[in-house]
């Protein structure tokens, strides 16, 4: 094992340090471009001679592709290239790369409505569309399956003949169940015996699209000697590059990816869609090719997050102590594995100091688009159930639901189900802050219901690189790799400025292409501000060491005799001699006479992410005649560790809650009997509009993570984790029965109300 990086061993976190910049809310340096429309997103790149790429998609949910005839399309004037499966290297089915290439372009079978089967590059969009109509695809339509539970049945249509269930001994028959995964601790049987009250319920949630406003867009340009430039909207330039290298069989040094500005990703841009198609079209046409997906294509063929079925059972004693928890979970993943479903059993109960837990999880393929990441992948879906059972238990034993959580809250030293031991965490502080906040202290308005729910996310680190350059005037540029999806550039600039003792306006950050820095893991899992912040702080500290050396040279003293404080190099003590402090700008002005440019660079596999916890409080009103739910008041309480840029942290809290509100209330994929999606538009896929959500109030709790120089944790995932559970709990209080199925749309809520009335004698 290589030695850990010094900053990972000792971050230098000092709770008493007076901070000048970290914790404020300066205007984002990239903000003006965003509000003026100057910012360049995926589809905003234009190159001379550029062609328009369009994709032909399967109209069938499940079909063998018997033949594809592109000859007529190729002959249409203006068409410069037509490609299909034959234009992609053959890679064995069932391998990671095999799945990836098959999702990009169907090979043996079309596996969902919208699956790409061919593509055209032409001189205009209308020519490209006309050419698509000339491509003849002969399909043998097969029975399809959409629902994961139906897909698990013995007589279900099989998507992949080669698939055998991982984690089941002796599994020898073709199946749609990719994996059975068991995770547990302690003895649940003994635990349930100790319980005075046990609640067991079944839940289901639906796939939900990430709903980014910017559809995927890219431009690929290639040279005759095989070099590729790709401009695209991505959360993962290096991951895209390496995967493209694998499926297209091109060396990574010949693929240069430049990330564009990000018009929303939320996990949905961690895997590619049109990019390999644009590259292959460009290689065949020998001209740059742009593909910008339409919303229809985005809905039918990208994302969403997994839908789930779950059975959750929790027992507790009369004093509130939870004695055991058990769960059975089913995750739909689309036609290929990759749902990251093992997050769910690891995170679903984690926040409570449980000793006895048993979980069994299944991942199942079906004829829908392959799922992609979304904030806290696979966790909100199951917390929807867990926090329902938690509130039900609390009410059964007559305990305040937040007190019930406090009674069971995990604290420092708790060994989690996934093996980590918690360092300093802020769940207790979060719950206490929730109890004290104005919303929770206010009485529930007449006719409304109030619900609460808690959530957890690991937060992540991982491979990260970055560079800090000091200019001749002492201003600073940063070269960052991990995509800025939510304002990480300004937060990281703030940390650099804090380290260097200069105003944040003297710092500017650019997003690197994949040739300019070493590998950066995807922007996901709430890792970017933490991890890239870590490498830039490390880079700043390296630059400071160099600044001190240069000052020592100027003064003719030993480097050890120079210290750095508030942006100045100073003699370390009176015995060093009498020298006027030198600013960064003064030292930088002399770099030509010293040893040239001053910079810091750092790369590491960042560790030490601090887990995050949140608690949501929501008040709802329900129209009892129509079942329509109105969110009246909403508060997010969450531990940020340290809010680097307060407004951005609040924005993350609010954004997570808003996406959760959509998932909770109305977002739903409607499939026809033919397996085709019937609502691939924002008109009918009902994401909330601005007037559907109230102001989301926020309470930032700050229990520092000492492994980070400023104490930060991640804040991108936790805010969506408890949302649907909190809303369902509130609806339950309002109508007398707690919904167990998403979305909690008006027809379903009205049915619950009517059934409940009928059961209770009208």
């Amino acid at each position, binding site marked *: 094992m290589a030695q850990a990086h010094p900053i990972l061993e000792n971050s230098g976190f000092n709770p008493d340090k007076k901070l000048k910049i970290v914790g404020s809310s300066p205007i984002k340096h990239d903000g003006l471009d965003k509000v003026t429309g100057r910012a360049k997103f995926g589809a905003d790149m234009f190159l001379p001679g550029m062609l328009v790429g369009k994709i032909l998609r399967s109209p069938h949910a499940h079909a063998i592709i018997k033949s594809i005839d592109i000859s007529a399309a190729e002959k249409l004037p203006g068409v410069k290239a037509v490609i299909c499966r034959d234009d992609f290297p053959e890679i064995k089915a069932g391998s990671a790369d095999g799945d990836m290439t098959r999702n990009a372009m169907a090979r043996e079978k079309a596996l969902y409505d919208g699956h790409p089967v061919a593509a055209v590059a032409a001189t205009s969009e209308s020519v490209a569309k006309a050419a698509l109509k000339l491509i003849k695809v002969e399909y043998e339509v097969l029975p399809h399956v959409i629902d994961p539970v139906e897909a698990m049945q013995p007589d279900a249509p099989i998507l992949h003949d080669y698939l055998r269930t991982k984690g089941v001994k002796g599994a020898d028959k073709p199946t749609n169940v990719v994996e059975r995964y068991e995770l547990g601790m302690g003895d649940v049987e003994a635990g349930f015996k100790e319980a005075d009250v046990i609640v067991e319920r079944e839940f289901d949630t639906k796939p939900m699209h990430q709903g980014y406003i910017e559809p995927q867009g890219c431009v690929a340009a290639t040279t005759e000697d095989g070099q590729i430039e790709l401009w695209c909207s991505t959360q993962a330039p290096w991951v895209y590059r390496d995967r493209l290298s694998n499926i297209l069989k091109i060396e990574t040094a010949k693929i240069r990816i430049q990330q564009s500005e990000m018009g929303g990703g939320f996990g949905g841009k961690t895997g590619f869609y049109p990019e390999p198609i644009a590259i292959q079209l460009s290689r065949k046409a020998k001209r740059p090719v742009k593909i910008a997906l*339409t919303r*229809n294509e985005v809905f039918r063929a990208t994302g969403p997050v997994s839908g789930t079925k779950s059975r959750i059972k929790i027992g507790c004693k009369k004093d509130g102590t939870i004695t055991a928890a058990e769960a059975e979970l089913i995750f739909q993943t689309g036609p290929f594995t990759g749902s990251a479903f093992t997050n769910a059993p690891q995170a679903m109960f984690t926040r409570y100091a449980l000793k006895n837990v048993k979980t069994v999880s299944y991942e199942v393929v079906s004829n829908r688009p392959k799922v992609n990441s979304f904030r806290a992948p696979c966790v909100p879906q199951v917390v929807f159930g867990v926090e329902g059972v938690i509130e039900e238990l609390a009410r059964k034993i007559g305990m305040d639901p937040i007190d019930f959580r406090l009674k069971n809250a995990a604290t420092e030293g708790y060994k989690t189900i996934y093996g980590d031991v918690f360092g300093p965490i802020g769940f207790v502080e979060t719950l206490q802050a929730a109890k004290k906040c104005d919303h929770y202290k206010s009485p529930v308005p007449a006719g409304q219901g109030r619900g609460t729910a808690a959530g957890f996310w690991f937060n992540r680190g991982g491979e990260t690189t970055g560079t800090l350059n000091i200019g001749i005037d002492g201003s600073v540029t940063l070269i960052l790799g991990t995509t800025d999806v939510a304002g990480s550039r300004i937060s990281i600039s703030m940390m650099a400025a804090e380290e260097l003792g200069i105003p944040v306006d003297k710092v500017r950050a650019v997003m690197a292409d994949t040739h300019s820095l070493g590998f950066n893991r995807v922007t996901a899992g709430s890792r970017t501000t933490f991890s890239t912040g870590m490498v830039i702080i490390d880079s700043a500290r390296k630059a400071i060491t160099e600044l001190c050396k240069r000052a020592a040279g100027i003064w003719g003293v030993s480097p050890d005799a120079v210290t750095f404080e508030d942006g100045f190099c100073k003699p370390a003590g009176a015995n060093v001699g009498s020298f006027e402090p030198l600013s960064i700008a003064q030292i930088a002005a002399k770099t030509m006479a010293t040893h040239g440019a001053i910079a810091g660079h750092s790369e590491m596999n960042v560790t030490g992410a601090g887990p995050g916890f949140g608690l949501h409080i929501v008040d709802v009103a329900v129209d009892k005649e129509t079942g329509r739910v109105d969110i009246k008041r909403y508060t997010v309480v969450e531990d940020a560790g340290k809010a680097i840029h307060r407004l951005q942290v609040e924005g993350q809290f609010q954004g997570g809650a808003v996406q959760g509100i959509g998932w909770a209330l109305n977002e739903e994929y409607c499939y026809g009997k033919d397996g085709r999606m019937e609502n691939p538009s924002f008109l009918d896929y*009902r994401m909330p509009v601005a007037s559907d959500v109230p102001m989301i109030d926020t309470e930032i709790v700050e229990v520092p993570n000492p492994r980070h120089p400023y104490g930060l944790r991640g804040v991108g995932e936790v805010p969506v984790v408890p949302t649907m559970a909190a809303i369902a709990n509130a609806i339950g209080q309002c109508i007398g029965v707690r919904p167990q199925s998403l979305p909690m*749309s*008006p027809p379903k809520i009205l049915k619950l109300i009517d059934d409940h009335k009928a059961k209770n004698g009208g």
Partner: protein
Amino acid sequence: MDVRYEAPQTLEAAVALLAGATAPAKILAGGTDVIVQMETDLIEPSLLVDIKKIPELRQITAENGGFRIGAAVPGMELMAHKALNKAWPGVLDGVKLIGSIQVRGRASIGGNLCNGSPAADSVPPLIAAGAIARIIGLKGTREVPVEQIPTGPGKTSLAKDEIIVSFFLPARPPHSGDAYQRFTPRTEMDIAVVGVGVNLTLDNGGTCTAARVALGAVAPTVLLVKECADALIGTKVDNAALEKLAAAASAACRPIDDKRGTKEYRIKIAGVLAKRTALAALEVARKN
């Protein structure tokens, strides 16, 4: 693949263009449906006849104590017309629910009607109001009640060469009021799961003497339901009348199960909404 765009200045020129079209032609008013349908490849017209430059289609004028409204007048202009708002608040309820401010800056009630959607928000209140459409074509002008124009989803009774020029909303007797309400899961930017337009007139004693009730999104076309009107006429629009109205509204529904709502749900909500809309119309009538 190429689209010919024409913007005639006169009704005659527009009719001639439509009559002479040899390939699929489409009338373009605000374009909030047509352009979107073209963008999403639902329609591929080869001729677009933009009727916004024709004066008769862009005017709101007083006529016989009522109003004549140009079919292409944008929603925001209708909303800004004070006298029209006062006389027909229910028609305006419908207009206000179309799309967003930006959409209503272009969208017109003529376009809303001719798009042929059973869920069009301005259509039930227009039908409840007894609006008469003036249609021009090669054979001249004809006057048609609005309820006779839609014939099914996306279809109208207009001939290929015909254009709706204007709508006539009649003079109002005292104690009249109209209202439109719809049900959508979202607050705005949504399509009605059910829409109800109610127009009624009371006598001096508060008894309903005339009523028209139209239901949207519950059948292939917007329905004018006589049984709903009968439930109100002769009553003081009390609870018993409202219950009868709700039952008649639910009974009239012939909805489908689709992405926007289930059959069962639409039938139930039609009744709930009919009651609520009748109460809203009643409140207006009592003030007039």
